[in-house]
């Protein structure tokens, strides 16, 4: 029972606030809030806070950029050029904004994967996962809509390709395309719409969802390991964990500042640079080596791997269906993972997470033309690049498998194996990417079926 008498007598700011807004329960909640320790590596718990830190940096630098940016056919590109060349520290603000966007996406992806690997999405935290998933989609939306705003050639074609994908949506495709673009083609109307989305619609939605996400976490606390009923020990959120959070944010700020100052236009890797380049010109052809941002490279490469027609549909339509399916599975994982639902180890979903990472790694590397010495349409160079990327993916896969086997005693590698087999069949043997995928998935399905029939108890022995 709180001592209401002493609360009434409390002086100072807290007493003043308490007499007006009854803040004592909030302080009591924070005083008792604990972070579970001794079960996972503590580092996973900081990723959400780091992501939010980068979002705050985005908001501050975004507001500063708004003071000079002028959307318009004759002003968008020119205002960014003026900002980066004439305005004192304008280049720095833009560089921090760009780097922070990349770092935010990296920390968000790591946050989602760590949540998946630790099965923190299991009941009662399904909606925490879904709100986090929606925040992830909004972050990609931020990246995509912000890309067009400098109105340069790269922005123009990236937006043309990115928006054209929605044309494949059944029934609504053309309508969606026109609503997104403000017409049939990417024009200055598209920029106006993207500008509105980037600076008003998405931030409002993001803030609302973040509030919901944080509310869920505060109400339910952080997830315990699978099977654990209580945490072995805990750390006080205030001040111990919060101070560590702040310390990490300071470290992130230093990393961000270093990158922004020394690499103001990105690391110089195609798909990871933001030189202003030439102004958008709808009547100029796309230039060789044009690539989207690194986090869209896997989709870019997947679009390339689809033949013109498949199953009576156009290749891009089937590709969109596959991407929608993958994103759909990612969204509803808490409901698919029935073993985690019952608070039991679910090795298949841990393996699915690792397989997804390797699948994305191979596509991203090939999209980057690693090993081809830059973009090339020469068949021999493409095959050489696929070979190099396959070796890199296999090496990464081998490290992952050995690490999981030794560190976590995992024994379930069918999906990881399928992802690696697909990379090997495509990159080393030279068969088509899709056929390699079908063969790999079929073999994994057969292996899983055989395991279930021959060793029905094996799953129970698996961990995490």
């Amino acid at each position, binding site marked *: 029972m709180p001592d209401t008498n002493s609360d009434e007598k409390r002086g100072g700011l807290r007493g003043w606030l308490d007499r007006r807004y009854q803040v004592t329960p909030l302080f009591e909640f924070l005083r008792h809030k604990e972070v579970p320790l001794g079960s996972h590596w503590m580092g996973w718990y900081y990723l959400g806070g780091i992501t939010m830190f980068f979002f705050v940096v985005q908001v501050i630098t975004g507001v500063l950029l708004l003071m000079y940016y002028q959307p318009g056919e004759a002003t968008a590109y020119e205002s960014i050029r003026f900002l980066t060349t004439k305005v004192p520290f304008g280049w720095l603000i833009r560089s921090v904004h760009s780097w922070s966007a990349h770092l935010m996406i990296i920390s968000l992806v790591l946050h989602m994967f760590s949540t998946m690997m630790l099965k923190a999405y299991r009941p009662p935290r399904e909606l925490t996962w879904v709100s986090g998933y929606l925040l992830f989609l909004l972050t990609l939306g931020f990246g995509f809509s912000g890309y067009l705003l400098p109105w340069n050639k790269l922005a123009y*074609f990236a937006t*043309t*390709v990115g928006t*054209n*994908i929605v044309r494949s949506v059944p029934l609504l495709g053309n*309508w969606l395309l*026109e*609503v997104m*673009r*403000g*017409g*049939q*083609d990417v024009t200055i*109307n598209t920029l106006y719409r993207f500008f509105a989305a980037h600076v008003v619609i998405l931030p409002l939605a993001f803030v609302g969802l973040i509030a919901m996400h944080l509310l869920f976490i505060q109400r339910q606390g952080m997830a315990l390991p699978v099977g654990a009923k209580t945490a072995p020990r805990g750390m006080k959120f205030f001040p111990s964990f919060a101070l560590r959070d702040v310390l990490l944010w300071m470290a992130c700020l230093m990393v961000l500042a270093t990158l922004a100052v020394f690499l103001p236009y990105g690391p110089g890797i195609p798909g990871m640079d933001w030189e202003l380049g030439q102004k958008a010109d*709808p*009547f*100029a*052809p*796309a*230039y*060789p*080596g*044009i690539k989207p941002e690194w986090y869209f490279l896997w989709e*870019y490469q997947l*679009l*390339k*791997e*689809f*033949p*013109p*027609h498949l199953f009576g549909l*156009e*290749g*891009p339509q089937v590709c969109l269906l596959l991407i929608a399916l993958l994103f759909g599975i990612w969204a509803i994982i808490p409901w698919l993972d029935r073993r985690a639902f019952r608070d039991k180890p679910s090795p298949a979903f841990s393996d699915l997470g690792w397989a997804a990472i390797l699948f994305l790694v191979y596509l991203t590397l090939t999209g980057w033309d690693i090993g081809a010495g830059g*973009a090339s*349409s020469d068949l021999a160079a493409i095959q050489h690049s696929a070979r190099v990327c396959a070796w890199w993916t296999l090496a990464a896969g081998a490290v992952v498998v050995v690490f999981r086997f030794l560190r976590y005693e995992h024994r379930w590698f069918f999906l990881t194996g399928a992802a690696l087999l697909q990379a090997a069949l495509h990159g080393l043997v030279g068969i088509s990417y899709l056929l390699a995928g079908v063969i790999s998935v079929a073999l994994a399905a057969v292996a899983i079926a055989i395991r279930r029939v021959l060793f029905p108890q094996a799953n129970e022995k698996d961990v995490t």
Partner: protein
Amino acid sequence: MGWLVSIVYPIIRYLKPLPQTGPTGPTRLTRDEASKLEQNKFVIVPVSGQRVMVLQSGDQLHAFSAKCTHEGCTVTFLPAQSVMWCPCHDGRFDLNGRVLSGPPPQPLTKYMAQRQPDGGIVVSQESA
């Protein structure tokens, strides 16, 4: 329900862009465009609101939609190989607009490019 429709419908209608207006019919290349064609062997011009590539292979003029049928990037012309190439996803088209390789699902739409007696070049839709 009616209340919801009365709110949502105007917003949906508002978001749908108005039909584009602008010059339609055949387009005559300007002096600048003609010199670009002479110099680069291709030029991209607006014809009835569409991006159209006019290219010169030998003595012959060809014209195609410059919008790749895969994801809508603007194609370029490679005179040495006599192909139109989309650098975005490596789609290639021959001088009839047919897909040679890569993921584009459809050929490029053909237009008509004609040299006039006065030396000017007029581009129009093929059916015209």
